[in-house]
C-alpha cells in the first residue's frame, strides 16, 4: 500500500502564454482530509483536473494511487470520486435517475445498485426529492447530489472541487463532518476551498497563489512557521488605522474584523505589542494572539504579489 494517494512533482499547466499551475509539488497522505487553499483563479481546479487526467499535463508528473497519470488515468477512475466545481449532473434527469446512471456507468453490481442509491439518498438528505429534476434543485441540493454522486461507489480517493460553494452554513457543517467520517473509514480526500474556517479543519493544507505553491503542511505547522507575530488591536475606531499601518516595512498586513484589527508584524521585531503601540498610541487595547490559518493565508498570498 502506498503511503501517498497523490504525489505531484513539478506539475505544470500552460494555456498558451498563460501558466495556470507552475511546478507544483504535493503529497497527499492516505486517510487524510487535505485542503487545497487559494484565491479564485489560483489554479486549484486546473491542478485537480490534471490529477484526474482530464487535462493534458504541460510538464512534471503526477501519480494517483501509485499510478502514473495520464498513462493509467483509466485504471484509477474506478477508485476516484470526483466532484466538479460546476454542477455537472444532467439537469433534465431526476435525482434518482442521475445516481442510477452513475451507478451503471461506474459498473456497480446490479444487486447492490438500488440499495446503495437509496443509502446515499438518505445520507445526503435527498430522500424527499428523489423525483425532482436536477435542474430544479437549489444550490445546496445540487451540491449534495454531486457529493452523493462522488461517494456512490465508495472510492478510495475523493477529489472535491469547492464542494461547499453556494451552500448554507448548516449544510456546510454537515458536509464537513461527513468528510471526516469518510476519512476515518479510510477514504482520502482532497478538497479545494477558499474559505478559512474550512481550511482550519483540514489535516493538512496546500496553499496555492497565482499557480504556485506558497505554503504546505499541517495547520499547526503552518501557523508555527508563520514569519509574523499577530497583534490584535481592539478599540472604538480601528478602521482608520489599517491604511496607515500597512505601508510600514515591519508590518505585513492589517485586517479589520468587527471592532478589532489583526496586524501581522515581522518576527524580527522583538516586542511586537510594544512596536504596534508605538505606532498607534495608547488609546487601544493591544494583545499578541495565536495565529490563525487566515493569517497564514494572508501572509502567503501577499508575499508573492509583493515580489
Amino acid at each position, binding site marked *: 500500500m502506498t503511503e501517498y494517494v497523490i504525489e505531484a512533482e513539478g506539475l505544470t499547466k500552460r*494555456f498558451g502564454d498563460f501558466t495556470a499551475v507552475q511546478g507544483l509539488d504535493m503529497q497527499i497522505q492516505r486517510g487524510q482530509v487535505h485542503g487545497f487553499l487559494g484565491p479564485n483563479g489560483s489554479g486549484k481546479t486546473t491542478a485537480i483536473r490534471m490529477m484526474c487526467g*482530464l*487535462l493534458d499535463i504541460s510538464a512534471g508528473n503526477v501519480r494517483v494511487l501509485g499510478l502514473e497519470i495520464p498513462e493509467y488515468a483509466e485504471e484509477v477512475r474506478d477508485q476516484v470520486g470526483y466532484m466538479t466545481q460546476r454542477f455537472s449532473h444532467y439537469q433534465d434527469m431526476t435525482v434518482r435517475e442521475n445516481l442510477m446512471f452513475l451507478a451503471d*456507468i461506474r459498473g456497480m453490481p446490479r444487486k447492490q445498485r438500488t440499495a446503495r442509491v437509496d443509502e446515499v439518498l438518505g445520507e445526503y438528505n435527498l430522500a424527499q426529492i428523489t423525483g425532482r429534476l436536477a435542474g430544479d434543485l437549489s444550490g445546496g441540493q445540487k451540491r449534495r447530489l454531486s457529493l452523493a454522486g462522488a461517494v456512490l461507489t465508495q472510492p478510495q480517493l475523493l477529489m472535491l472541487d469547492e464542494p461547499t460553494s453556494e451552500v448554507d452554513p448548516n449544510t456546510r457543517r454537515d458536509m464537513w463532518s461527513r468528510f471526516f467520517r469518510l476519512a476515518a473509514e479510510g477514504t482520502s480526500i482532497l478538497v479545494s476551498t477558499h474559505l478559512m474556517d474550512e481550511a482550519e479543519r483540514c489535516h493538512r493544507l496546500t496553499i496555492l497563489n497565482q499557480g504556485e505553491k506558497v505554503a504546505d503542511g499541517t495547520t499547526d505547522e503552518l501557523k508555527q512557521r508563520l514569519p509574523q507575530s499577530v497583534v490584535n488591536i481592539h478599540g472604538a475606531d480601528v478602521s482608520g488605522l489599517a491604511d496607515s499601518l500597512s505601508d510600514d516595512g515591519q508590518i505585513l498586513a492589517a485586517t479589520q474584523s468587527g471592532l478589532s484589527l489583526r496586524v501581522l508584524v515581522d518576527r524580527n521585531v522583538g516586542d511586537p505589542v510594544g512596536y504596534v503601540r508605538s505606532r498607534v498610541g495608547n488609546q487601544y487595547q493591544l494583545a499578541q494572539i495565536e495565529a490563525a490559518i487566515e493569517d497564514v493565508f494572508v501572509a502567503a498570498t501577499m508575499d508573492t504579489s509583493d515580489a
Partner: protein
Amino acid sequence: MHSNGILRSASASLRRVMAICVKELIQLRRDRLTFAMVVAIPLIQLLLFGYTINTDVRNVPVAVVDQRDNFFSRQLIEDLQASQVIKVHTHLETPQQATDWVRAGKVSAALIVPRDVEKRFYNDNQEPIAQLVVDGSDTILASALKGLSDFPFDPSQPPSPRQLAKNITVDLLYNPEQRAALFTVPGLLGVILTMTLTMFTAIAIVRERERGNLELLIATPVKTPELMLGKLVPYIGLGLLQVVIILLLGRFFFDLPVVGSPTLLMLCCLLFIFANLGLGLLISTRAPNQLGAMQMAVFILLPSILLSGFMFPYAAMPRFAQHLAEILPMTHFIRLTRGIILRGADFSDLAGDMLFLALFFIGTMIEALKSFRKKLD
C-alpha cells in the same frame, strides 16, 4: 481464465453502453420539442412538399389576342386549351397590350393569332401560324410552354393521340401518370432523415460539453466507443420510426406503392440512418458549441437538398456538381429509394450505392472517434 476476463470486461462494456442509451432515452422523453419534431417534421413536410412540389405544368393563365376571330382561329385556341397546359384567362385587342400583361405578371403568356393565320397554315413554307409570348422568368413554366411549339394542329378534326405517334413514341416505364408526389416522397424521406438525425446527433456531444456534463462523464470509466455507441442506438430507433411514419403517410395520402422489396428498402434506410448519425457525431466532436454544430448541419443539409437529385435531375447537373453530389449520402439514398420504391430495383442494381453508405458511416465514425478525446482541453 483469460477468456473469462474478456467476457467480464465485455459485459461491463455492454452495461456502460446500455447506461448511456437509457440516459439518452430519458432525456429524449423529457425533451418534448425534439420528440414532437420526430413526428411533426415528417407529417408537415410530407403534406407540404408532397402536394406543392409539382412539375406537371397545368392551366397556365394566358391572354389571347385573336386578330382573325373566325371559326379557324377559335378552333386553334380551343385545341391549345384542350392540351390542359394553358387556360385562356382573358381576351385582349393588340399584341402590345398582351406583352404589357405578361410584363405586369397578370398572365404567364400571351397567345397572338395573326390576321393571316389560315394563309400561313395552308402555305407549305414552314411559317409559324401563331405566336406565344412567354414569361421566361420561371424556367419550369417556360419549358412546358415551349413544348407547345410541336403541338399538332389539324383544323379538320380534334387532336388525337395517333397524331402524336407520328413523331417519336415516348413510353413511360415507371410512374406512368407522371405524378410528382411519387417522385418527391422517396426524396423527402432522405431530406427528413438528414435534417432530423444529423441535427440531433450533431448537438449530442457538444451539448454535454456546453452544459458541463462532459467533465463528469469523462471522469468515469466509460470509453469513447461506448459513449458513441450509446448515443447512436436510440437515434437508430428514432430514424426507423420516422421511416415507417413517412412510408405510411405516403401510402395514405399519395398512394405511394412500394414496387421493390420492403426488406431491401428498410436495409437501405438503415444504412442511410447510420451514415447520417456518423456524420452528426463527427460534427459534434468538431463543433465548438451547439450553434456551431447546427450551422455545420445546415451546411450539409442544403447541398443534400439541392444537389442530390431531390429537386433537380442529377443527370442535368454540370460535372463538378455531380462529383460533389457523389460524396453526399443523400444522393446515393435518393437513387436507392427511387429505385426500390418506383422501379422495383433489386440488390444487384443497388449494391454500389449501399456500399457507399456503409463506407461513409465507417469513415465518419473513425474520424469521430479520432477527434474525440476524453479530455477537457
